[in-house]
């Protein structure tokens, strides 16, 4: 199981690094918003792996909270970008 957890966390870390690369590079604000949304999903997945490692269910509600906050943030930012560009 230790090897499996190592592999899983390694893959998730690689995914997070690639997402951050897109976040830094992304030509437009909307690319960055999409990348940030993916980053939040990867964080939720990583905390799920943490829960699986320690078999500790006490942080499960936190994951739901993080997922919801990520949704609200991305949706608001995308709407704001649309409004800014229109007034330009």
């Amino acid at each position: 199981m230790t090897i499996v957890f190592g592999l899983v966390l390694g893959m998730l870390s690689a995914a997070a690094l690639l997402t951050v690369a897109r976040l830094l590079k992304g030509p437009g604000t909307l690319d960055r918003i999409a990348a940030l949304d993916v980053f939040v999903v990867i964080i939720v997945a990583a905390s799920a792996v943490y829960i699986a490692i320690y078999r500790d269910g006490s942080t499960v509600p936190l994951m739901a909270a993080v997922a919801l906050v990520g949704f609200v943030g991305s949706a608001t930012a995308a709407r704001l970008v649309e409004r800014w560009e229109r007034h330009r």
Partner: protein
Amino acid sequence: MIRDIVSSVFLLGGALFCLLGAIGLVRLPDLPARLQAATKPQTLGLLFVLIGTAVRLEFENAATLVLVILFQAVTAPVISQIVARSAYRTGAVDTDLLVIDELTARVAEQDGK
């Protein structure tokens, strides 16, 4: 023992899908293509990781995980749609590359009102 095997398979599959989505996010050329990579593999990956986690937990906590995947399944398409619409409205999408474009006529009609 059998729980460990099932959990391992799901966790590895989920992490692989998350990695594929991230690779797609970096490699794909324009925003609509990147949104595909940002939405579908990520949701599937998170679903698999959460199944793999739920197998190792007691029932009450596993039930809360269902809530998490439900949020993700509902919110990912919404964000994708909002971002794509903002991109279209602000001219970040190259309309020459689209195969079918049903939105231009609608937007023109709405702006003409």
